[in-house]
């Protein structure tokens, strides 16, 4: 690793670790599994392992992701990205950051890597909490079965990697907007408009044109609810859209007339 970049990463992590962003990522990841756990304890027969052991984990998994993929995850991305970039604007620290011996490229990508890592932390925590929500109710309530086998970890990992990939366009756009506008409201408002556009795209046969719907489309694919056959692979489109959004953000950051 480039030493300048390594130092930039450390600096960004030092700024981030004491912010509410880490807690938001963990609490956000806990929310739905907690609701699922409570729901199972209140209605013990809804998710029976013994009724269909082969499908138990997949069913629990899809139920949990159903709420997350369309609304909560995109909103979380918008919130965390804006919040982390806003630290610099709010504290008036851009100028201090930019006069330290770090290249603009290092600063830009270090911040981005930290935000991506938070998203990854959210994914890992969310999946861990889903697994716990599948086990804990059985340990607490005698009418609920305790699963006899582990969840399909390989499938979950592949699905999560694909989900992370489809989140990148929104992350790239939100990062670019958050760097561009010092006013917290502007990137959040644009991000919310993108989420709404993504929800509408789910009903549209040309929905692949809206990059913010890719995570929802991926959820539809993994849950077997695929409605449309798109002419292009949404995973490649995710990657291309991300490169375009992040590239525009990078150039705008590099050539900005007034920095800090």
């Amino acid at each position: 690793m480039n030493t300048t970049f390594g130092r930039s990463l450390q600096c960004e992590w030092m700024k981030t670790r004491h912010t509410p962003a880490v807690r938001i990522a963990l609490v956000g990841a806990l929310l739905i599994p907690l609701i699922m756990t409570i729901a199972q304890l209140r209605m013990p027969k809804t998710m029976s392992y013994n009724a269909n052991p082969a499908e138990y984990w997949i069913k629990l998994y899809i139920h949990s992701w159903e709420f997350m993929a369309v609304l909560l995850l995109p909103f979380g991305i918008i919130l965390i990205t804006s919040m982390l970039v806003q630290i610099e604007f709010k504290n008036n620290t851009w100028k201090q950051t930019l006069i330290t011996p770090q290249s603009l490229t290092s600063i830009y990508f270090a911040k981005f890597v930290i935000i991506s890592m938070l998203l990854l932390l959210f994914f890992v925590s969310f999946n861990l909490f889903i697994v716990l929500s599948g086990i804990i109710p059985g340990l607490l309530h005698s009418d609920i079965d305790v699963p006899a086998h582990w969840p399909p970890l390989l499938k979950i990992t592949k699905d999560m990697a694909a989900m992370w990939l489809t989140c990148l366009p929104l992350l790239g756009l939100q990062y670019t907007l958050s760097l561009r506008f010092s006013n917290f409201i502007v990137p959040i408002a644009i991000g919310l408009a993108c989420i709404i556009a993504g929800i509408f795209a789910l009903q549209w046969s040309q929905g692949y044109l809206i990059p913010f719907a890719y995570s929802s489309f991926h959820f539809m694919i993994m849950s077997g609810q695929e409605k449309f056959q798109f002419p292009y692979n949404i995973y490649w489109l995710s990657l291309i859209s991300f490169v375009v959004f992040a590239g525009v953000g990078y150039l705008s950051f590099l050539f900005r007339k007034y920095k800090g």
Partner: protein
Amino acid sequence: MYTLQTKQLSHRFGNGQMAVDHINLQVPDQSIYCFLGPNGAGKTTTLRLLLGLIKPTAGTINFFPNHPSPNRVALMQRIGACIEVPSLFHHLTAVQNVAICANAYRTPKSRMDEVLQLLGLADAKNKKVSQFSLGMKQRLSIAIALLHQPELVILDEPTNGLDPQGIAEIRSTIIELNKNEKITFLISSHLLSEVEKLATHVGIIHKGQMKFQGTMTELYQASSKAAKLILSTDNDEAAMQLIATHFDMQPIASGALIYSSIDQSLSLKINRMLHDHRIGVSQLQWQDNDLETHFLRLIQNPTL
């Protein structure tokens, strides 16, 4: 030898206003160069241009011309700066703020305690910056600027928000570092009294233009050059004629005995001459030969 030189440095804002107008800044090695000007004169814009936070419309900036740095990252390792209001992370403690910069500058941890001690913040190092007063924030910002023992320190209004004792402490710290560690300081200020006590060199800027640049001694000389001698006698008309005849001087204001002169011994000579001619002198005084008046005159009428 200069630590910093600019040639025709200019910056025009988006609305067409010339914020910095062809400035040739010359900061000598190991000097305390004070950049003086009223609010809105272009001081902060110039400092931001120097640090690369704004791009110049025209002109060049040359840091360490004798030992130039190969790139911006290497250059920034040699410069410490604090621009405008303190740039600090309010959700972090003082020591955490310093640690972020220590990491960026590759500074050993022992140095962190040293600068906090130097700026009188050792006892408050574990306190969150959000609980700091403006003066403490200012001290912390200066501590961060000094952290990596830079060759040049650029400070924008460093005594803002400090109490008189704090101002005196910061001043003596700067003078000490300049003398003992040979650090060059470029300090912007609108407080003339502070500049008088601190600077070895001064640059006066107004409306984006450099009105004066030189040593403090040169500034004092220029100041006394523009001093006024004010006289009141019991026969002003005769006194005026005598002064014109003997000293070849004309009053600068019509109908009053007010003369512009550099020669401080003139008052004695005139007094003696008027006494010899039996003209009573009721008032004889030098006025406006202090730095403040000269500064005000410079920014109001640069031709003086």
